[in-house]
């Protein structure tokens, strides 16, 4: 009798430890998503700022300036639910303006243009990176949250179900080119 009770107690403690460990894992994943999302936001904002700076600097022709300014402005002001679309449109605009190496070269020739081009190149390269890291974290969290244990014991609490950030982040060819000197 006593023996049975001891075994039951051991089993309950073991289950409790497992649940607590799983909850810890889930908590860590949510923290990782938050950090990745913050990094992605920072990179997107950086890209929009650099674009806006370039658009207002008078380096580009008026038509290109307006296209870039509009897109960058829309991306920065976008509400959460329109964000993915607005950021994708900025990618499209950047591709349209910086599709040719000539355009990038002409920017580089103007005083201060060299740094601006480098900054923009870094920004368009880091956005896809940050997005991939974010979506990777989201996938890991979703895989764990779909697990029976997590669903039955409601280990995720009230945390919202994580969503991937889907957008077109293909960088413009002329800027994505690896340095050829």
């Amino acid at each position, binding site marked *: 009798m006593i023996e049975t009770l001891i075994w039951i107690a051991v089993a309950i403690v073991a289950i409790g430890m497992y649940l607590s460990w799983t909850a810890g894992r889930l908590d*860590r994943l949510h923290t990782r998503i938050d950090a990745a999302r913050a*990094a992605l936001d920072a990179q997107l904002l950086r890209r929009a700022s650099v674009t806006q700076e370039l658009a207002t600097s008078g380096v580009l022709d008026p038509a290109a300036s307006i296209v870039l300014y509009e897109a960058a402005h829309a991306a920065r002001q976008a509400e959460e639910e329109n964000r993915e679309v607005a950021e994708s449109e900025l990618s499209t605009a950047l591709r349209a303006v910086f599709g040719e190496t000539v355009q990038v070269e002409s920017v580089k020739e103007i005083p201060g243009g060299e740094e601006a081009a480098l900054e923009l190149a870094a920004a368009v390269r*880091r956005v896809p*990176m940050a997005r991939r890291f974010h979506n990777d974290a989201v996938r890991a969290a979703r895989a764990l949250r779909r697990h029976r244990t997590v669903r039955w014991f409601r280990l995720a609490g009230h945390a919202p179900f994580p969503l991937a950030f889907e957008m077109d982040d293909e960088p413009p060819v002329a800027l994505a080119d690896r*340095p*050829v000197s």
Partner: protein
Amino acid sequence: MKIGIVCPYSWDVPGGVQFHIRDLAEHLIRLGHQVSVLAPADDETPLPPYVVSAGRAVPVPYNGSVARLNFGFLSAARVRRWLHDGTFDVIHIHEPTSPSLGLLACWAAQGPIVATFHTSNPRSRAMIAAYPILQPALEKISARIAVSEYARRTLVEHLGGDAVVIPNGVDVGFFAAAEPRAEWQSKGARSSVEGAGGRREGGTIGFIGRIDEPRKGLPVLMRALPAILAARPDTRLLVAGRGDEEEAVASLPEKMRERVEFLGMVSDEDKARLLRSVDVYVAPNTGGESFGIILVEAMSAGAPVLASDLDAFAQVLDLGAAGELFANEDADALASAAIRLLGDPERRTELRERGTAHVRRFDWSTVGADILAVYETVTDGAASVAADERTGLRARLGLARD
């Protein structure tokens, strides 16, 4: 930035991953970052100042060959101490799925963790069995890097998730500036009037790699050699790498053996000079390669490359645009491609030029900037790396002292 790098394989044994880590660490130090590398090493081995020993590695059969790995309590304790003392902004773990320091570090750390996946082994039973054990550790990795599109595909298939592709780096300038050695060159190249004598002259073929490791493909090259020598009797094969030389040439007819020269283990300088000297560099590897750094080194040195059509090799050679490919393990295809290349100086010059332009993307200046961009992305708004205390029961019950 304070960067901690974890090397899974023994520092005293030469290998692709170790060289990559050494070059990365030295590149980052040159840029002014603080770098500490945790690597398995015998306590007596002299180590560079930035390497911290995690104790002696134990030879264990793993991934098709014998690897020297670290595990157990002692190693785990050293990993924890290193994490605690280092107060790193980011740690960069190489090969986190190998049962060694990488996995231990993944278990023990929290905070921004970057991981590079080097291997691309086909789905193994051990991997499937280990999946539930690996998953909690791998979940902590904030950013994954794959060394090639092929390695990324394997990673996605085996573990799910995604990774950015950043190739392994090579010091292109070092190889491009190496001085060719006359005795490793063919007569045609030496007199530098190619075409006149060069067409009939045999030329030299280079091979670098372990002789006794069948996956490096020397047996395939040995099977192809009689045909190459029949067409171009003056051809010489230069083999650099350790292993049993007698056994390697055993399959060759007696009189052809003198056309093969064994150089033994060569220094980095001699490796670069060898690559600068040969007319064709042959990489007949039969599998187990996820990147092919030697091809990049050969191209940096301006050697025309002929390689087996492994996925990873095809990728590095830009699907055949920067070097020639032959059907894997097909000695006849290797022989005919080699004969064609040796007899065609124009094609070799073309390959040299394409190769030189192609390798720029593998130079440390490009690769290092990309890796730093990954570090900066994961450290944005995140706390620094610390030992993960949550694994203790006391901590979970809220009893741990802060």
